[in-house]
C-alpha cells in the first residue's frame, strides 16, 4: 500500500480549511442581512412617521379651514345680526317713548327684554365660535363674568375660587362650550331649586386636568327625586368630552366636572 506525500495531504487539508470559509460566508450573510434589516426597519419607521405627519398636516389644514369658517360666521353674526338686534332695540325704545297706552308700553318692554336676551345669546354664541377664546384663562374669566351677572339680581351670594390655573393652557372649543353649558344649567338649577343663599364656583387645574366645582348651601336634591333632564344632560356632555361629572348632596348640592385638556 502506497502513501501520498505530506505536501499533498497538507494541501488537501488546507483546501478543506479554505472551503470551510463557506461557513464563514454564511455567518457574514446573516450579519449583512441583519444590518440591512435594521436599515430597512428604520426606513419603514421613517416612512410611517412621514405618512403620519402628512395626515396630521391634512388634519391641521382641515381644522384651520373650520376655524376660518367659524370666524367668518362669528363676524357675520356680529356685524349683521348684532346690528339688527341693536336697531330693533332702538326702534322699540322710540316706540316706547311715543306710546301713551300702558298696555302697549308693557308689550314694548317685553320686546326689549326679548331683544336683550337675544343679544346675550348671540354674545354667548360669538364667544363659543371665537377660536381666540380656546384657553382655560378665557373660559374661567367668561364663566366668572357670566355667573356674577346671572346671580347679580338674586339673593345668592357668589364666591369665586381659583387654584393653579394656567391661563394659556389650550382647551378645545367643544370642551369649553360643553363646560359653559353645564355651568349655565347648574346656575339655573341653583337659582330655581336650591333655596340657597351662597354659591361657590371653583376652578382647579392639575397639569392636564381641569376641574370646575359648583357648590351651594341649599336644600340639596331629594334622594327620591329621579335624575332630571338637566343632570342627565350634564353627565352626557362630560362623557362626550371624555370627562367626568359627579353630583353630591351633602349640606347643599355639589356639582363636580372634570375634563382632560
Amino acid at each position: 500500500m502506497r502513501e501520498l506525500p505530506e505536501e499533498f495531504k497538507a494541501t488537501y487539508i488546507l483546501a478543506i480549511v479554505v472551503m470551510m470559509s463557506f461557513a464563514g460566508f454564511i455567518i457574514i450573510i446573516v450579519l449583512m442581512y441583519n444590518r440591512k434589516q435594521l436599515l430597512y426597519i428604520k426606513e419603514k419607521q421613517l416612512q410611517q412617521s412621514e405618512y403620519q405627519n402628512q395626515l396630521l398636516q391634512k388634519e391641521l389644514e382641515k381644522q384651520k379651514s373650520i376655524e376660518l369658517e367659524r370666524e367668518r360666521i362669528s363676524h357675520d353674526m356680529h356685524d349683521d345680526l348684532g346690528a339688527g338686534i341693536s336697531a330693533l332695540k332702538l326702534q322699540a325704545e322710540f316706540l316706547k317713548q311715543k306710546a301713551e297706552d300702558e298696555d302697549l308700553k308693557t308689550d314694548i318692554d317685553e320686546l326689549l327684554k326679548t331683544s336683550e336676551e337675544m343679544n346675550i345669546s348671540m354674545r354667548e354664541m360669538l364667544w363659543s365660535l371665537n377660536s381666540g377664546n380656546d384657553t382655560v384663562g378665557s373660559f374661567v374669566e367668561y364663566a366668572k363674568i357670566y355667573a356674577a351677572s346671572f346671580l347679580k339680581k338674586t339673593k345668592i351670594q357668589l364666591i369665586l375660587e381659583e387654584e393653579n390655573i394656567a391661563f394659556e393652557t389650550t382647551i378645545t372649543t367643544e370642551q369649553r362650550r360643553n363646560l359653559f353649558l353645564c355651568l349655565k344649567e347648574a346656575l339655573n338649577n341653583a337659582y330655581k331649586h336650591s333655596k340657597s343663599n351662597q354659591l361657590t364656583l371653583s376652578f382647579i387645574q392639575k397639569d392636564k386636568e381641569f376641574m370646575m366645582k359648583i357648590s351651594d348651601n341649599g336644600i340639596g336634591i331629594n334622594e327620591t327625586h329621579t335624575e332630571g333632564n338637566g343632570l342627565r344632560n350634564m353627565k352626557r356632555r362630560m362623557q362626550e368630552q371624555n370627562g367626568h361629572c359627579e353630583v353630591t348632596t351633602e349640606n347643599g348640592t355639589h356639582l363636580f366636572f372634570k375634563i382632560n385638556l
Partner: protein
Amino acid sequence: MSLTKIYEIVVFITFLYSIYLFVFKKKLKEQFYLFLYLLIVILVDIIPVNIQYLKKCDRIFLFIVYILFSILYFGIIYHKSIVNKSFRILNFILLIFLIFLNIYKFQDQNIEKINFIPIISLPILFIYLSISWYLFKLKNVDETKITDSFLFWISSGILIWSVFFIFRAIPMYFLQENDPRLLSFVIAAFSVVNIVTYLLFLIGLINIKNERTSGRI
C-alpha cells in the same frame, strides 16, 4: 456508535419529524415536501447499506437516481422561492443541462466507477442555488429574521455539504488506490458533515413547526 450510524439516525429522525409535520400539522408546502427528498435519501443511501440482500444492488444506478431527483427537487423549490427572472432562466437552463448530461453520461458509464459528471453536478447546482438564495434575501430584506426562514437552513446545509462532497467524491478513486488511510479519514469527515447538514434541515423543520416561517421563503 459509528459516525455512519449516527448519520443514519439523524436522517431518520429528520424524516420522521417531516412526516409528523405533514400528517399532524398539515405543513406540506411550508416544508417544500422535504419528506420526499428524505425518503429518497433513505431508500438510496441507508436501506441498501443495511439490508443484506440489497447490498448487491447497483449502487451506481441508485446514486444516479438520487442525483437526478436532487437536481429536480432542489431546482424546483428554489425556482419557486426566488422571484427573479434571470435566476429562473439560468436555473432552468442549468437543470436541463445537468439532467441531460447525467443521463447521457450514465449510458456509457463504467460499471466499476462513477463518472466525474454526476459527482460534480450536484455540488455545482447546490452552490449556485444557495448563493443565489442568499443574494436574493440580501436584496429583498424584510422584517423577519433570516434564521426564521426554512430555506436559510436548507441553503446552509447544502452549501456546507457541497463543499465537502467535492473533496469526498472527486479524489475518491485516486485515494483508494494511493492512500486508503486518508480516504477513510475523508469519509469519516464527510459523515460528520452529513450529520451537520441533516441537523440543519431538522432545525429548519422545527422553525416551521413554530409557525414562524409559514409561507415564507
